[in-house]
């Protein structure tokens, strides 16, 4: 950790902070390492609440996240994306595996140490309607992290709030208003301002654009990109919008039933997908050119995602895979490197 977030906040320190972060780019240590992460939720039933099974929401996930190398995470509903995000932030206690942030293993960190680490990792939520307390003014919502972790008071505090509102493109004079007085896009900006208030290094964006209109989506994504450039942020960007993911991420990971099935650099993955699930997902993206769009071949998967409480043996995708083979039912496919940083978990890929 190069710069601890101190009690006082000054502009010079802020600049210094950014300068030091730029310096960090030169080092090759990953910002975040997730190793063999598992999150299993017990299913209880009966009068005695006896455990009758487990929901394997996340089942062995590995990835490294380099500073400013955004990772995009795609997958259909219920595959564990949000659970992964919340587990990384330790909002759930992981069942197994390790989360290493800036070289600190935070998997079993005590709450006081974890609390100070929280200033450096923040989250932007999916539903801007739900993620802001309706009874707090925008100013106090944005200032909540400041109240919790700094001793800023009065003028300094309101100055910082106005600075943040300005940074996300809202009128700084709005700080006295309530969330319901804003549109969805504006509310999402308020959520972004709150996430930025402590100068975090790492922000998890949990489908930040899913609840917004298409025209507003682009605005918010552009804002996120601008902020990344200005503040040297790193995003873990969760979405099911494949186009947006390609736009904002350096690397993309595809999740299916609590596992990463394919990961690679964005362009490589979009042009040279190997896993049948990735292919099916990509075939669902409409093309801009009407001529090509008319000829677009779609791979339509049958059935639903299997229940994570009772996943299929072997490869989790075998129940819906168009290229399924007998060996898929026997063993779980291992991650295989098939190119520069491109890895895939499929028996059929050689």
């Amino acid at each position, binding site marked *: 950790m190069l710069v601890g977030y101190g009690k006082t906040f000054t502009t010079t320190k802020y600049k210094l902070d950014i300068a030091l972060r730029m310096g960090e780019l030169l080092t090759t240590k990953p910002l975040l390492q997730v190793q063999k992460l598992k999150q299993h939720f017990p299913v209880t039933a009966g009068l005695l609440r006896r455990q009758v099974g487990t929901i394997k929401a996340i089942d062995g996930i590995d990835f490294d996240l380099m500073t400013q190398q955004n990772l995009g995470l795609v997958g259909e509903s219920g595959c564990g994306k949000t659970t992964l995000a919340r587990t990384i*932030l330790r909002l759930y206690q992981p069942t197994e595996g390790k989360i290493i942030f800036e070289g600190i293993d935070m998997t079993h960190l005590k709450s006081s140490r974890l609390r100070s680490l929280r200033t450096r990792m*923040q989250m932007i*939520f999916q539903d801007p309607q739900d993620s802001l307390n309706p009874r707090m003014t925008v100013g106090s919502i944005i200032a909540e992290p400041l109240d919790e972790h700094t001793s800023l008071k009065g003028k300094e505090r309101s100055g910082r709030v106005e600075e943040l509102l300005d940074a996300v493109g809202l009128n700084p004079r709005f700080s006295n208003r309530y969330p319901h007085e804003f549109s969805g896009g504006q509310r999402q900006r308020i959520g972004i301002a709150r996430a930025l208030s402590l100068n975090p290094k790492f922000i998890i964006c949990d489908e930040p654009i899913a609840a917004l209109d298409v025209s507003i989506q682009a605005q918010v994504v552009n804002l996120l990109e601008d902020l990344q450039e200005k503040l040297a942020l790193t995003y873990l960007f969760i979405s099911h919008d494949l186009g947006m993911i390609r736009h904002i991420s350096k690397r993309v990971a595809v999740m299916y039933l609590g596992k990463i099935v394919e990961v690679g650099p964005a362009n490589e993955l979009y042009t040279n997908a190997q896993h049948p699930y990735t292919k099916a997902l990509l075939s669902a993206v409409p093309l801009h050119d009407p001529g090509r769009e008319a000829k677009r071949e779609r791979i339509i998967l049958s059935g639903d995602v299997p229940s994570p409480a009772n996943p299929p043996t072997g490869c989790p995708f075998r129940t819906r895979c168009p290229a399924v083979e007998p060996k898929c039912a026997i063993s779980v496919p291992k991650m295989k490197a098939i190119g520069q940083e491109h890895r895939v978990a499929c028996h059929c890929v050689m």
Partner: protein
Amino acid sequence: MTKPSASLSKQSLLDSDGTRLELEHRSMWTDVWRQFRKHKGALAGVFVFVFISVAVFVGPIIHGVDPNAIDFTARNLGPVWSHPLGTDNIGHDTLAQMLAGGQVSLAVGLSAAFIALLLGTLIGVLAGFFKALDGPLMRFTDLFLALPILPLLLVTILLFRDSLRATFGPETGIFLLIVSIIGVTSWMHTARVVRGDVLSIKEREFVTAAHSIGTRRHRIVFRHILPNVLSPIMVSATLGIANAIITESALSFLGLGFPPDFPTWGRLLYDGTNFIQITPSRVIWPGLFIALTVLSVNYIGDGLRDALDPRLRGR
């Protein structure tokens, strides 16, 4: 979305659709008061409640008749100049008794409801927020709901009456006893409602956001949970006042409450029921004032609830 520019004028700013943006600092309590004034029922409630309170606490100074003075020459009178609300069967002045009784009833109602509110909110929030406490606390609540209240009251009063009387004097002692007993036996519904609301609010994303920020748990409760469960708390608090007044009268009726020479609205009401055919006003006045108090408090609660909700403000 317009980016704020440096040339922003200080006084007024036209929004894109031409409406003037409010730029002056608005304090929350000014807003609350502004919205509260719009609620006609709440204003009427405040008026009635203030009127009743002033009447029972200032009235005895003006109407200087001793509520316990007995005048056998003036029994079962209708309204006359010396006894504006008439007299009862042994010649007590009904108005004097109403005023003296009002002081006790209001004090009992407000303080017992307050105790029940505190207990109910505390237990509801603890049960809803901490999963480990949910089971034990709610079974505890069920236990209280299942308790036969009357025998419990009997035993408690017999056990503690004399020692409390000795410590605080006969009136304060019995007042403390009744208030705490009513408070301790009527918090359960509040607790249940609050627990239910806390359970749903704690799953909202803004609470998750607060966790991810690193907000401490007690702050989450006070900053995010409690303000959002205000509505059911308000409602059960206002209803609780009515309940407390009625329960006190039932206790007095059973001879467990205040001594017989100590009038309360509930006691007057019960005493009057036997004479309803001779002097119906003895029932009508206490009944009317209990109803008016409850109604006005309810309307005040309703108005406050609306005024404290920013989403309803300014409508």
